[in-house]
């Protein structure tokens, strides 16, 4: 083929590719950058869009950590207006990176104080989830054994070989559970707990999915009836059951000191040209409409104390009264060391 | 006793009969050629003998032994492939030595045999050459050497000249025949080229549509083809229908010919084959002698071919004929009339189509 024709074709292709990416927006768009687990109902999104005559665009960029890192890396040229999905384990990193601008939303008054981890309101709490042990009710009933009630139960001989947990180095609930043990047993005691747990034949997987769908007897052909999951997992089992259920097949251990509270935040990214709209969006996320939508969309609890929980949540789980909470700064400072120590103790 | 014998061998592919009940016998030291157009089944027949295909029915015996249970690598037959199938990752020496290594020949004997075989095919000193450096003719010789080196009892050659150009082909035809006779190996060659077949073989079998149309030494084949098909394949196209008269002569649209050796019954339909060399120029008004016939025709084309002229002419009644005439006397050019004297000894008869 004539080289000139070849060259022409390539140039045309490149131009086409370049043009491809220039999407001309029809109405005003506001973009929310978030992680894979984010969800919202059509109604709720439509409500915002109609009220403000905008199009709500979502940008999903991997899991919570990956999404945040991408937001940080694109600091000088942000990809979105608002970022949703920073949790308390990443809070310090997000704030140090200085990518959010403060906004004291009037709706913060409806949010309990213990959820407001950023006094400067660069990151505002939207929801929280409790990472707890879940157990397979049927398994324990069939064998007429008492299910676990506290973290200490896990190291008892009766529970040998029954638990599956996630690697804190690779899993968010895994890290949360580790933090729960650090908070509950203290810096001096948590490794001892893990040592005993290891001796008690605990199984470790790399992620929540392989633990839940691969090892947990309540959801798979696995043989472990105790798994680290969320307090909202039992209601999810009911909601997503094949046939309507009266009772949840699993239950969460929500006794004091046995859960870790993961709080999720939203923040307005610095450099957004649509500041007013972004603020309205943050307000919307803290309002009852959006807040009451959260449980059945993302299976976490709404931060707004006025939001009403759906039936399935009220019947099949409860919000832990005294979950473990660690200051974000402390988490940021010691996280790597704790994970390292955990790895040494449990995996080697 | 025949060395190789095939009895009613058949082979079907995809429910199409490829070889139909073929029987033949080959004596030791003979060179048989399977001649036929593409797709007639001759290569399949060769592969059946080699053991690379299995016949659906029939028996193939070699030296009295049924070959059916014997796999190809135990038959001790040599085979030369159309595209030579030389091993590109080995040099000439290693190619030729391949069969000998498998025979576990001791090293000194092996080296001697390779050298001898290379000499025989005219490739002395080529032992270290790489296959990719060889010309077409050289590759053919290596392929031949490779198949001869293990001293096979039967050599099978699949279109050995097929991949060569015309000039090379003619030179190698003679060489091949010489080498095969020198070595004395019984051979079966497959080709579609009649000249090759005639040059190399002792016996030629014309294969058509999976069957043997005629099997005979080249001279017999040429002089007495048994069917129009065989004749046409040999390049003999002067076929005229006729009927045997009471006096033994054959009446044809070209005239009455008294063909020697006519054994057909009176009234039988026959086809007369007039070989190209049958004609010579006759003066206008000449007389036909006892073994001759005269025909008038108009020249369609006259091709000078060096040693002779090829003359295409059509008679009054529309019969097209082709003759070769000696170069010494040029025949008339296209469009002109010509009178030809036909020698009946250059004619032969074959059975005609059955009566309607």
């Amino acid at each position, binding site marked *: 083929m004539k080289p000139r024709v070849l060259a022409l074709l390539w140039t045309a292709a490149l131009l086409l590719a370049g043009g491809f990416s220039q999407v001309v927006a029809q109405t005003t768009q506001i973009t929310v950058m978030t992680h894979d687990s984010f969800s*919202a109902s059509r109604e709720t999104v439509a409500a915002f869009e109609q009220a403000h005559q905008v199009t709500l665009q979502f*940008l999903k960029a991997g899991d919570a950590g990956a999404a945040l*890192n991408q937001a940080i*890396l694109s600091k000088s040229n942000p990809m979105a207006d608002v970022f949703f999905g920073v949790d308390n384990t990443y809070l310090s990193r997000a704030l140090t990176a200085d990518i959010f601008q403060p906004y004291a939303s009037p709706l913060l008054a409806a949010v309990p104080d213990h959820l407001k981890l950023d006094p400067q309101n660069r990151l505002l709490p939207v929801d929280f989830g409790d990472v707890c042990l879940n157990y397979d009710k049927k398994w324990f009933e069939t064998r007429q054994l008492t299910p676990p009630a506290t973290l200490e139960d896990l190291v008892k001989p009766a529970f040998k070989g029954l638990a599956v947990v996630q690697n804190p180095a690779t899993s968010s609930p895994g890290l949360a559970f580790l933090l729960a043990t650090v908070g509950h047993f203290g810096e001096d005691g948590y490794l001892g707990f893990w040592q005993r747990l290891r001796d008690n034949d605990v199984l470790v997987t790399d992620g929540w999915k392989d633990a839940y769908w691969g090892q947990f007897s309540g959801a798979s052909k696995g043989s472990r009836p105790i798994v680290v999951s969320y307090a909202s997992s039992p209601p999810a089992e009911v909601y997503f059951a094949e046939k309507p259920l009266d009772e949840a097949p699993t239950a969460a251990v929500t006794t004091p000191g046995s859960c870790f509270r993961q709080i999720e935040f939203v923040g307005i990214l610095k450099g957004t040209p649509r500041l007013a709209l972004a603020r309205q969006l943050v307000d919307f996320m803290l309002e009852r409409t959006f807040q009451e939508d959260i449980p059945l969309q993302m299976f976490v609890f709404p931060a707004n104390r006025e939001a009403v929980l759906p039936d399935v949540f009220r019947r099949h789980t409860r919000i832990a009264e005294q979950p473990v909470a660690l200051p974000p700064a402390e988490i940021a400072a010691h996280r790597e060391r704790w994970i390292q120590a955990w790895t040494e103790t449990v995996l080697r | 006793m025949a060395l190789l014998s095939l009895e009613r061998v058949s082979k079907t592919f995809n429910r199409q009969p490829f070889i139909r009940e073929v029987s033949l016998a080959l004596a030791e030291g003979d060179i048989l050629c399977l001649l036929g157009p593409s797709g007639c089944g001759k290569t399949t027949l060769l592969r059946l003998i080699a053991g690379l295909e299995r016949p659906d029915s029939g028996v193939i015996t070699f030296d009295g032994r049924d070959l059916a249970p014997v796999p*190809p*690598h135990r038959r001790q037959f040599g*085979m030369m492939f159309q595209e030579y199938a030389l091993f590109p990752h080995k040099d000439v020496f290693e190619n030729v030595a391949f069969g000998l290594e*498998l025979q576990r020949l001791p090293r000194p004997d092996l080296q001697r045999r390779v050298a001898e075989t290379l000499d025989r095919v005219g490739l002395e000193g080529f032992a270290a050459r790489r296959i990719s450096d060889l010309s077409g003719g050289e590759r053919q010789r290596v392929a031949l050497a490779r198949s001869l080196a293990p001293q096979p009892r039967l050599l099978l050659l699949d279109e050995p000249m097929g991949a060569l150009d015309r000039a090379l082909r003619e030179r190698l035809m003679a060489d091949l025949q010489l080498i095969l006779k020198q070595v004395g190996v019984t051979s079966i060659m497959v080709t579609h080229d009649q000249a090759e077949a005639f040059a190399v073989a002792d016996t030629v079998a014309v294969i058509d549509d999976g069957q043997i149309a005629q099997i005979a030494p080249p001279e017999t084949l040429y002089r007495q083809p048994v069917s129009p098909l065989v004749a046409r394949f040999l390049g003999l196209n002067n076929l005229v229908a006729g009927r045997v008269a009471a006096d033994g002569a054959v009446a044809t649209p070209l005239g009455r010919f008294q063909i020697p050796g006519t054994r057909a019954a009176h009234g039988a339909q026959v086809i007369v084959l007039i070989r190209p060399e049958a004609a010579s120029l006759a003066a206008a008004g000449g007389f036909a002698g006892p073994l001759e016939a005269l025909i008038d025709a108009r020249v369609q084309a006259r091709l000078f071919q060096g040693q002779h002229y090829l003359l295409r002419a059509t008679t009054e009644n529309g019969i097209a004929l082709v003759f070769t005439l000696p170069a010494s006397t040029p025949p008339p050019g296209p469009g002109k009339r010509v009178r030809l004297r036909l020698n009946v000894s250059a004619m032969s008869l074959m059975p005609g189509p059955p009566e309607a």
Partner: protein
Amino acid sequence: MASPLRRQLLLVLPPLLFLGLFYFYPLLRIFIVSFLPSDLWAPLEPKRLLTSGYYLGRLWFTFWQAAVSTLLTLAIALPGACLFARYDFRGRAALQTLATIPFVLPTVVVASAFQALLGPHGLLNTVPMAIWGLSTPPIRLHQSVGMILAAHVFYNYAVVLRIVGGFWSQLAPEMNEAARMLGASGWQAFRRVSLPLLRPAILAAALLVFIFCFSSFGVILILGGPRLATIEVEIYRQAVHLFNLPLAAALSLVQIFFTFGLMWAYTALQRRSSLALMPAAAAIGRQAVQTGGERLFLCIGLLPAVLFLTAPLAALLIQSFTTDSGLGLAFYRAIFENRSQSVFFVPPFQAMGYSVGFALTALLLAVVLGLPAALFLAGPPSRLAALLDPIFMLPLSTSAVTLGFGFIIALDRPPLNLRNSLLLVPVAHCLVAFPFVLRSLLPALRSIPDSLREAASLLGASPWRVWRCVDLPIIGRALLVGVVFAFTISMGEFGATALVARPQTPTMPLAIFRFLGQPGALNYGQAMAMSSLLMLVTAAGFVLLEKIRPETSGGF
């Protein structure tokens, strides 16, 4: 008339440009960001990295699990490739499709299928336990290297099958026959004649499998468990969870250098062993199975592989139909319903459409770039070609997360404002698919003797004509192999897609992953149903692709 050199350069320019823009430039940017001092992370201590036994240990593990996986895959798949190439038997095409499907399945799904088979409560344990009354499961592969190796073989069987099998069926069978006529038994003919001739294809397939296993992520993470980690997993951990970019970047560099070195050695080997072969003539091809002995051989050779490959897929399929009330279509119906009215609901047909659309675009890109690259590399040897051969393979071994971050930084301003572009997904897919196309084409291209091209040239054919009438028919099959791989890779790609895709254009793997994000039997069932659909769509894709054969003069 352009000089040959200019033509060669024009050939290689587009793939180089593509690689430069979408691979080297983002990588460079992310490396710069990572290695410059910042308050976001601790600076890198190179000495600590080099002397730390931990990272060396990771590197060693990465290497040997990839090597053993490769050898195992070759050992299991080569006999299959032989049978596929040489014999024609009923169900041959179906089997080939089946063998390639694993390639497309997300690891999570495959892990689940393996669990259903090999786990402590899986079929292969519960059945023998029931029959022989055992108390503990006989197969204890859980979270072990054995599982990883098994999964790698499962995934990569098709690579060897198609690349070696495809090349093998192009080998003129006469050489094998000539060897047999000279007294070699089947095995001897194979060992002394066929095997050396197959070496380029075997090496190509082995290389691809090795690199694939070397940078394997999902398999190691899920099936290996937390104790077994490769460099790739470490990179992910450091980059995403710990945001320790300097370390992640350093490990990425280690990965790249290592692969480059390996590729360099391989390409040197490859160039020396390439032989010009006469490609197979039209009518010769596979032979029908004739004797009872051959039939038995076929069964023994193929049956274990077939079982191993299809069992997990069958387990998946069965799980998608197993509802509380027996076998039924409940899950398939459910995937069409937007139960929670989520704005991110993925209608299955839409997901299929996007998956196939991205796959076809990626495929086209991979071919349009891979073909000239292959032509360039198969042309006259030069220093540039020797350097570019390994370079073209690098994207395959680079961590998706490193590249993903690179895209974020590098592609953010016009004229390269492609961060949010739809095009980025097929581009990311193409980066992985392009080396596959290249490696599939090269052995075939290098095997065409120059004499063929010269003959065509002398007969008056222009270079374009030569290429169209000589090269294309011969490499037709190899091209098809590359095309099928590109399609499959794109259909099943998850890691990079998760980082660059927009929620409006979800692919099937993303949809599957979404289902598995929440508990609930319905979610699990839907994930299985979607996975089964993914398998179906991919298989249909193969069948259609294989029908599009480039115009051939002699057939293949």
